[in-house]
């Protein structure tokens, strides 16, 4: 059989640009009938964007999509669904206060002709049948709110099936479910595959990909790298394909004299998030925290800073025990946190560059701690804008109009004005293009050179290897390995991130 005729879907030279970032640059992608096709890449590689183009959520700037050999253009998610493409999102999109049946048939309820009255019994019956197909006995009458995450996942899959979709996209479907449920899900995927459906499977978990997929496509920095048969691949190949760039060019790691301990965390625990964490950060040192999503990295640093409260454990700053109950305490004790999600947690997008830069340290620019000293405030903002090379028309520009990289520089400026001893960075370069990334790395190096300690969370291995003096690996809330610069090894770190203790894994 000619393989090409087997392609149910072809995406050719797809390009998608967002302000300041090329998210997809001439990406091509093909999927065959009856295959499970893995899609891999680091965060920000363009996987989600590519799938959102396919699901009709984004419109591509250029490029073609051929569905069963025919050129198509999806105007909306509904359009894509009706043509047989269903996407199961990583964050579930269900109406929590409606029943399973109502959710599955949302927007296409069958009605008594001419009345608008919903045929509820029929819908329930149809729902039960679909659920049986995937061997699930969830009651169609139950409210979504009462279901477990895994059950919700099953409902999403049932919904995809109910559209008679030929192509089903699954974005990290196992990120929130238990092993037993994973096995059920994999069984369902095998059956779907046997019935001739195509599954696009996005995951960071190597073992799952090797177990499930027939082929794997790798993207990197918005570019198509390669598509290979899974049977021909090793884990090492995959990592190589995902990472693939020359580290020394981008990362301006400098040898900096390591000084005294600035931050010491002892036996820090928080229920269901992390346990018995011990770590130290010295002046001039960059300590990386690696781990998968949901490993408890963000929760840990937020507890050190005061955005959450640890249950037990001790935090010492410059040798002195401190009590940190809220962000204000954190700031007062010389800790700063640059959060992962700039737009949600880091910035007031409606306010000016200046207002955002000075907010955490506003008291320093006041008379009597209350009345704003405009002159001092402007001077401080201007100094940081220049120092951090924030590209903005003026200090009064609304932050929401700047590019991601410049927004991140504004966040960094805000925190550097508090003159922190320890700067915590949570995914500092997420969603930022390569050029701005490299600039931010230079700033991080410079900050370390000033004698401050830095903790950096990142999901991008090259970034950690390029910047850090030490890396701690977190798995399900526990430290499974600590690596000094001489010991850095992708496979070892990856193994610890998947739950092996350091030195335990044999690859």
């Amino acid at each position, binding site marked *: 059989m000619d393989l090409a005729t087997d392609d149910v879907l072809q995406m050719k030279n797809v390009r998608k640009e967002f302000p300041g970032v090329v998210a997809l640059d001439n990406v091509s992608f093909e999927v065959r009938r009856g295959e499970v096709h893995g899609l891999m890449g680091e965060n920000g590689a363009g996987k989600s964007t590519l799938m959102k183009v396919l699901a009709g959520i984004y419109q591509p700037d250029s490029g073609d999509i051929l569905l069963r050999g025919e050129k198509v253009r999806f105007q909306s998610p509904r359009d894509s669904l009706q043509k047989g493409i269903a996407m199961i999102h990583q964050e579930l999109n269900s109406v929590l206060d409606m029943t399973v049946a109502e959710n599955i048939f949302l927007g296409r309820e069958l009605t008594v002709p001419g009345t608008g009255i919903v045929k509820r019994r029929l819908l329930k019956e149809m729902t039960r049948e679909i659920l049986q197909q995937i061997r699930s006995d969830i009651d169609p009458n139950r409210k979504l709110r009462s279901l477990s995450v895994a059950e919700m996942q099953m409902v999403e899959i049932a919904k995809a099936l109910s559209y008679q979709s030929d192509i089903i996209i699954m974005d990290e479907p196992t990120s929130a479910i238990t092993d037993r449920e994973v096995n059920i899900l994999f069984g369902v995927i095998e059956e779907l595959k046997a019935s001739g459906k195509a599954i696009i499977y996005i995951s960071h978990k190597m073992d799952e990909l090797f177990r499930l997929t027939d082929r794997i496509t790798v993207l990197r920095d918005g570019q198509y790298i390669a598509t290979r048969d899974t049977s021909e691949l090793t884990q090492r190949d995959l990592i190589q394909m995902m990472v693939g760039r020359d580290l020394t060019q981008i990362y301006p790691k400098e040898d900096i004299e390591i000084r005294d301990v600035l931050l010491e965390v002892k036996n820090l625990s928080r229920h269901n998030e992390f346990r018995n964490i011990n770590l130290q950060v010295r002046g001039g040192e960059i300590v990386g925290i690696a781990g998968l999503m949901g490993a408890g990295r963000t929760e840990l640093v937020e507890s050190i*800073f005061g955005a959450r409260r640890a249950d037990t454990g001790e935090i010492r700053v410059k040798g002195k025990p401190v009590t940190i109950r809220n*962000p204000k305490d954190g700031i007062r004790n010389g800790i700063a946190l640059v959060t992962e999600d700039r737009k949600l*947690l*880091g910035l*007031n997008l409606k*306010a000016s560059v200046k207002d955002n830069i000075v*907010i955490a340290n506003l*008291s320093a620019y006041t008379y009597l*701690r209350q009345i*704003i000293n405009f002159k001092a405030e402007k001077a401080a903002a201007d100094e940081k804008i220049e120092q951090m090379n924030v590209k903005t028309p003026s200090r009064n520009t609304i932050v929401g109009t700047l590019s991601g990289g410049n927004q991140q520089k504004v966040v960094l400026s805000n925190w550097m004005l508090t003159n922190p001893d320890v700067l915590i960075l949570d995914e500092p370069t997420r969603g930022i293009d390569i050029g701005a990334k490299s600039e931010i790395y230079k700033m991080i190096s410079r900050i370390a050179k000033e004698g401050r300690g830095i903790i950096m969370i990142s999901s991008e291995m090259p970034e950690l290897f390029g910047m850090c003096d030490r890396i701690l690996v977190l798995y399900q809330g526990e430290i499974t390995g600590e690596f000094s610069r001489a010991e850095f090894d992708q496979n070892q770190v990856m193994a610890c991130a998947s739950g092996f203790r350091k030195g335990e894994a044999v690859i």
Partner: protein
Amino acid sequence: MSIRKQKLSSVFFKYGVFIGLVILCLVLTFITPNFLTAQNILNILRQVSIIGMLAVGMTFVIITGGIDLSVGSILALSAVVATSLAHPDTYPLIVPIVVGLLVGLGCGVINGVVVSRWKVAPFIVTLGMMTAARGLTMVYTNGRPVINLSDKYNFIGGGYVLDIPLPIIIFVGIALIGVFLLNFTKFGRHVYSIGGNESAARLSGVNVGWVQTGVFALSGLFAGLAGIVLSSRVMAGSPVLGQGYELDAIASVVIGGTSLMGGVGKIGGTVIGVLIIGVMNNGLDLMNVSSYYQQIIKGIIIILAVLLDKKKS
């Protein structure tokens, strides 16, 4: 479009509401001979001063992303309590004033604490306060107005200083205090930051609960002051004073360009919003348009103003 034209249109959008006010005044000057007289202008200003005081406090609340439905009732409660202490030859004038202000402040603090401490939506909390404070007013007065007030008390709302009615001077003072607090203090900056992004504000060390309590306290305090001025102006502490005023105050704030989503807004805009409503009511009165039609026109203007604002951004 030429650059000049672009500039012109951006100026129009930036000062849209202000230009609207100017146009409204010009039109009224031409069609009603009595509009542009010193007497009538002072009349308008005196009429709007009560809603104006409420609207200044309301601006703070709305910029944080909240809403205060209770100001009309707080006004009434403060008014009846203050007037009950303002009979001739009883207490010195300072007593009804201070107690009236404290009543307003107290109600506002309760609003703020319930919103910030127990995380109840401002709409619900202030809806409850609106109902409860009105009920309290009725209980306190047995449903009858408090009358027989001292001349000194009646001077607050009815007196003149340098030929200007005192309520106007008080309103201007409140507006200036509002501008100062909002634009010249740390508190004001925190008000904007909470409305813009509450999580980011908290992570930047802003004491969100304190600021939230502060804006409701301010709104309550100004409502208390408005109650004193209004009861003095009508020379009676009627328990039905201020009914529906919260809606006029909110309308003024919104017409003035403050976003109900929070994070954006100015006292200056609110003052213009207050004036637009006042001038419009006055003009329609002068043209003998019935108050029924006035309501329809007011409703349309509120929606137009918000549309204009949307276009700006």
